């Protein structure tokens, strides 16, 4: 299965696998699919406290994010690795997508909130009404 670059992703490394290890779904593709299902999607882990903080941030703004707990997903492990590659850094979570587009980890989310770009983005995605 080949990976295609989509507008919302930018470019990423195509995954290579042998025939024997074909995975049912490419993790990145799955991530992309899940990310576009809702206005605000947070990839998280139930034990991660920073993920808890990011969830509280959105809830505090009045946004209702959809959360995917990787440690509770059968393919969570793969998705975690894919996210690390996507971000270019560890830890993999939390990662936030707004309107199908990648915002980033906690630092990027907070930075965009402080510099005032997050709220317009949320409104555009229909996650926030004011």
């Amino acid at each position, binding site marked *: 299965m080949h990976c295609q670059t989509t507008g919302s992703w930018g470019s990423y490394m195509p995954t290579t696998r042998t025939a024997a290890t074909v995975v049912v779904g490419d993790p990145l593709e799955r991530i992309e699919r899940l990310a576009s299902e809702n206005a605000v999607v947070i990839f998280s882990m139930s*034990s*991660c*406290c*920073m993920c*808890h*903080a*990011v969830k*509280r*941030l959105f809830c*505090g*703004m009045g946004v209702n994010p959809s959360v995917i707990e990787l440690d509770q997903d059968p393919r969570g492990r793969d998705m975690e690795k894919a996210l690390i590659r996507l971000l270019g850094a560890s830890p993999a979570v939390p990662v936030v997508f707004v309107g199908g587009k990648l915002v980033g980890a*906690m*630092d990027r989310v*907070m*930075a965009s*909130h*402080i*510099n*005032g770009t*997050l*709220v317009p983005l949320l409104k555009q995605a229909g996650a926030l009404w004011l």
Partner: protein
Amino acid sequence: MQSFKAAATTTNQDMFCHSSFFLRGDDCNSRHQTHFPDLGELDHPAVAFHHDDAVDLSPSSIFSSKSSNVAVAANDLHYSALNTSIGATEMVSGGTGCLNTGQFMYQKGPAFGVSLGNGHIENWADSGLADKSQQTDTSTDIDTDYKNQLHGVQHGPMKVDSVDQSKSKCGDLKMLRRLAQNREAARKSRLRKKAYVQQLENSRLKLTEMEQELQRARQQSCFIRTGLSDSVMGNAALAFDMEYGGWLDEHQRLINDLRLAVNSHMGDNELCILVAGVMAHYDEVFRLKSIGTKADVFHMLSGMWKTPAERCFMWLGGFRSSELLKILGNHLEPLTEQQLMGICNLQQSSQQAEDALSQGMEALQQSLVDTLSSACLGPTASGNVADYMGQMAIAMGKLATLENFLHQADLLRQQTLQQMHRILTTRQAARALLVISDYTSRLRALSSLWLARPRN
């Protein structure tokens, strides 16, 4: 002593007392140990030496006893220090001598030609002992002064025949006595002042030396820190403290320059540069904190590198951005509509971010509690080491996220400052930075006052 007593009781008008006082080199700090009580035994009506005076010398003297260029003055008693700046004739040469009031000795000095043997005492008719004639500063003994005046010398040995003269001119005596006393007092005062100024100058030089040393030490600590391969926790904490101290000093300098610029109504172009300088310097502290957090997160969290009052109102290892914006409040006016909205949004978003991080920290703490209490505790605790170690490993992992929280908090602070800088004009930004700095300075001053407050 016996001889003194004998002398005191004589009615021989030709007798007078010589006394020479030597400052014992090693006794400078313990003048109270001198044998002044012995003088009391002299049973003389107007003993010029008082125990209290002598004792007062050490504490009341503002001059360090280490300095040999010190003139010490007492009420009635005058001790000439070794080698005073004015001292031409000292009874003691070099730095040695002994304060030995018990003995009345006449030491041969360069200016004195007369020497009397030990124990030879001559009394003035109605005066006390104190003849310091061999010293440049004579005692306030009136007769001595009068005698000196008569002879036209400040110092010199007392001559016996002066006694008769003083007795016969009682009327003039009082007036001359008073004049001489005034002169004497004035001279002593001048000497004291001179010595005091001298000491102040020395202290000032020492202070600048120490400041330079401190600066050098701080710079050296920077090298020490970067030279550490595996930094010991204590060293990392110390290193940060020192660097932060240096940062604060530089910050104060920049702020002072900014204040001058604002007050002198400097043009926007130059002001902009100064403001940018302060902002860049803030970036520097966040860089230092980042290094410090990686090295010793608990030290950064503890806030021990801040003053007590700052520490009390600290949030996650630093100041609260939202609080800072509230403080700025009215100081930023006049603001345009757009600016006002920008500042309001900034305050709101920083508040939300702070709340989010705070809740994350609470979750972390709760999680840690759960982990540490999940393995059996108390009397029923099993001896399962693997279990214990497993829980500890999980707890260690959770603790590691502490660094991330601190890091995010610092990022929040940095970004709030930068956004504020973006929204405001140059002049407004300058004022805002001054307000923030002044507020922090006051907190620090409050800490100092609190620590120094009188306690019952």
